[in-house]
């Protein structure tokens, strides 16, 4: 019976091997390198605390007398939101968002923070019950960390749950640039055991197509919505063996938005917030959980329904990539007369959008701005998937050999919506006009 112990967290994989296999260690100037958190290869043993961070990483640590020692390096990071879209962001240890800090209730943690940014910064341990001077609020609870300086934070973890960390100095700029991360504290004595434990941090950005840096001044018109820093189709699927009990920890550090995260084909229980475990009596089942900004929500469910299931924010503009919100309303516009006049004047022009955005997916041969992504561009098994942004796929299968992407779901006969035949329509008395 495994207990959430330090050695278990490291899971017998030597740090040297991990660094060698990922190369991440080369990139990071940190004393300690990040550890890839998505298991690969053979199915690992089930464990209550093998935290998985799709598209992300765990922050490595080392045990010293009296404390677990972590090292965060705040620095500029070239981050890829999805293939075809990169930007110069700010992150920690070469990543956006920062690697997940994973620890156990009762641990004493010592976290060094080195500032390699061109601006002062601090780190706030969001939701953690810490001595006031360890709260990381620039000016109020500490001096901010100047470029080149390294500060030490040290405190005891008096709680367990899904917390977060982020800059608390010029928050507007620094969080918009990506200086955020998750901070997961396992209970010393777990009440609820799960087979899979995922951590996802939600965020929103303004990256003007053709530019290479997020615009931190944006207040409302965000055009990139991410899970663990990735926009669909850049998000890695959550691959689950049927019957596994799944926990998904959702944190939200978006500048201005809350995200109702919705699951398909299942329902879940909201079991925790950033304040800790919700008593059993207070939990209720649902399929959409609102994750307000500055909050975390933890859901648990049994993955008992095979298939490729969307897991996404239900705000429709949050499942689009880099869309222009000031374009004229073209719905229902008759294009022929217009095209006849416009095409000679503007070679390459063609009226679009008169039936919505769905057709955009078919226009991938047209030239678009550099370093930008189409509104919707992922090709699915059956057709283009007209979704982007804060969207990922939960893939539930039987008999998985590994947690690598198993490909598209093979629908058993009779379980796929198909073209209705004339005979079927007649049989059921359906008249199509």
């Amino acid at each position, binding site marked *: 019976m495994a207990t959430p112990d330090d050695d278990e967290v490291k899971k017998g994989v030597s740090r040297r091997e991990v660094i060698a296999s990922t190369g991440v260690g080369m990139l990071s100037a940190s004393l300690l390198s990040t550890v890839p958190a998505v298991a690969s290869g053979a199915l690992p043993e089930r464990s209550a605390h093998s935290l998985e961070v799709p598209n992300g990483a765990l922050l490595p640590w080392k045990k010293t007398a009296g404390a677990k020692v972590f090292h965060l390096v705040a620095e500029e990071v070239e981050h890829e939101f999805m293939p075809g879209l990169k930007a110069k962001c700010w992150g920690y240890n070469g990543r956006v968002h920062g690697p997940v800090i994973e620890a156990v209730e009762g641990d004493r943690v010592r976290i060094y923070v080195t500032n390699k940014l061109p601006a002062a910064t601090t780190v706030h341990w969001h939701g953690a019950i810490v001595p006031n001077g360890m709260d990381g609020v620039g000016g109020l609870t500490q001096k901010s960390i100047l470029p080149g300086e390294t500060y030490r934070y040290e405190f005891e973890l008096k709680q367990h749950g899904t917390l977060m960390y982020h800059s608390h100095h010029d928050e507007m700029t620094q969080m918009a640039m990506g200086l955020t991360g998750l901070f997961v504290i396992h209970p010393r004595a777990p009440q609820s055991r799960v087979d899979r434990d995922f951590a996802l941090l939600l965020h929103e950005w303004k990256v003007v*197509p*053709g530019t290479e840096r997020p615009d931190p001044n944006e207040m409302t018109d965000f055009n990139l919505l991410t899970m663990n820093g990735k926009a669909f189709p850049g998000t890695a699927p959550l691959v689950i063996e049927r019957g596994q009990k799944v926990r998904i920890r959702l944190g939200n550090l978006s500048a201005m938005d809350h995200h109702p995260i919705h699951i398909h084909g299942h329902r879940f229980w909201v079991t925790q917030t950033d304040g800790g475990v919700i008593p059993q009596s207070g939990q209720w089942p649902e399929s959409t959980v609102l994750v307000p900004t500055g909050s975390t929500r933890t859901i648990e469910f049994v993955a008992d329904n095979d298939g490729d299931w969307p897991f996404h924010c239900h705000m429709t503009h949050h499942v689009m990539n*880099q*869309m*222009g919100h*000031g*374009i*004229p*309303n*073209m*719905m*229902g*516009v*008759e*294009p022929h*007369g*217009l095209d006849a*006049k*416009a095409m*000679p*004047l*503007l*070679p*390459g*022009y063609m*009226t*679009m*959008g*008169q039936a919505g*955005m769905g057709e*955009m997916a078919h*226009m991938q041969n*047209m*030239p*678009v*701005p550099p370093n*930008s992504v*189409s*509104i919707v561009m992922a090709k699915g098994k059956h057709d283009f998937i007209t979704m982007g942004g804060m969207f990922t796929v939960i893939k539930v299968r039987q008999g998985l050999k590994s947690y690598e992407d198993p490909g598209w779901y093979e629908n058993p006969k009779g379980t796929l919506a198909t073209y209705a035949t004339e005979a079927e329509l007649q049989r059921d008395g359906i008249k199509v006009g």
Partner: protein
Amino acid sequence: MKNVLFLFLLAAASCAVIDKAKGHAELAQAVEARIQAKTGWHEGTPEKEQIDARVKSLLEGGLTFKNAIEIALVNNAALQATYEDLGISQADMVQAGLLKNPVLGFSLGLPLSRAGHLEMEFSVVQEFLDLFMLPLRKRVAKEQFLLDVQRVSHEALEVAAECGKAFIDVQAKERVVEVHRVVVQSYDVAATLAQAQKKAGNIDDYTLTQHLNALVKAQVELSRVELEWVEAREGLNLLLGLEGEQARWQLKEPLPVLPAEEPQVTNVEALVDQGRLDVAAARKHQALLLQGVDLAKTWRWFGTIELGAHLHQDPNGPELVGPTLTLDLPIFDQRQAFIARLEAEQRQADRRLNALLQKARSEARVALAKTKHTREVAMKYRDVVLPAQDALNALSLRKYNSMLIGLYELLENKNHQLEASLEYVEALRAYWVAQVELTRALGGRRAEAQPKVPLLPEPSKTKTQEHEHHGHP
């Protein structure tokens, strides 16, 4: 004795033959050397049919810059009148070479009686002094004739310069009209989109009306520039003396782009001194007056030289006088006041020459500076602004493809591009006008010193105007 005198008189008269081509050949040569264009008048006044035939052949296949100037040189009505000054001047010159006709005193006495006989007296009186004056008079008249050739050549160059500028103006205005037609197209597309959106229920009357109004404004603007274009054509027609069917020419060449190389023009002030025919004429005038002063002084005890002046009233041309010489005997008036007047006139001519030179040099310096400045501006448009506008257009289409912007914004970009091409047209127009001005200010240039008109098509034309329609009202 009587025979000797008669022979002398014959000799003096024999060289005094009117030559129709005289002066015109020199003028034609002077003009061709300076602006590489033929006057068509080198043999004197051509017949109307000859002029018509020449104009017709010069209009063949559309009007070019060079042909327009040659048409003006042969067909400009005011210039044709000016050419006749050469005939007048030559006649004066011939006249100056003739002795006064002998006065035939003929009196008939009627017989008072039958016994009386018819008396007839016939006498030849030749004014003695006229014989002395003849060579002087001939020399002055010849100088005057040469001066008139220079003056008329200068007039021809002035007309050629006006014509050159008017031609470039027509080329530019034609481009302006073409671009404005595309501007109308662009607003038409926007209005069409607005109507389609309105039909679909996507915009209100307010927005639709805005787009329709914008289209009307663009159409009005087009009609304004079309009128300017018509005016420019008419201005050129007037200079070319073209009317009726002949006035309906088409341009053979669009407004040219910049020449690959700028002709080296250095030491403009010396070029002005050597090249300008109005300067040369003023110099000759000044020299004539100087000669007049000398003559008057030499002859003051014998008689008087009357320097009759014919004053040319052309406001643009130099004020020139031509002397005629007569003599009388200084019995009461020893001509001191007259000499003083002549001296003052001579000094005045000196000052006027100086003023003309200053003005001419200044014109040349300004014109040279203008060619350099306008070339730089046109190059900026050619190398930076227009490519940037093309790039913006392409980039905006990319944005459109990503649905970041709509058609209205595409059209706005297109309009910016069209504005830039209008500014480029203006820059090219200013450049070519400055080149004509420079040629004029220098009193002409040799062919090698003229800018080479490139034969390449307008670069922006291929990119921005591929769909516009040609043809004029």
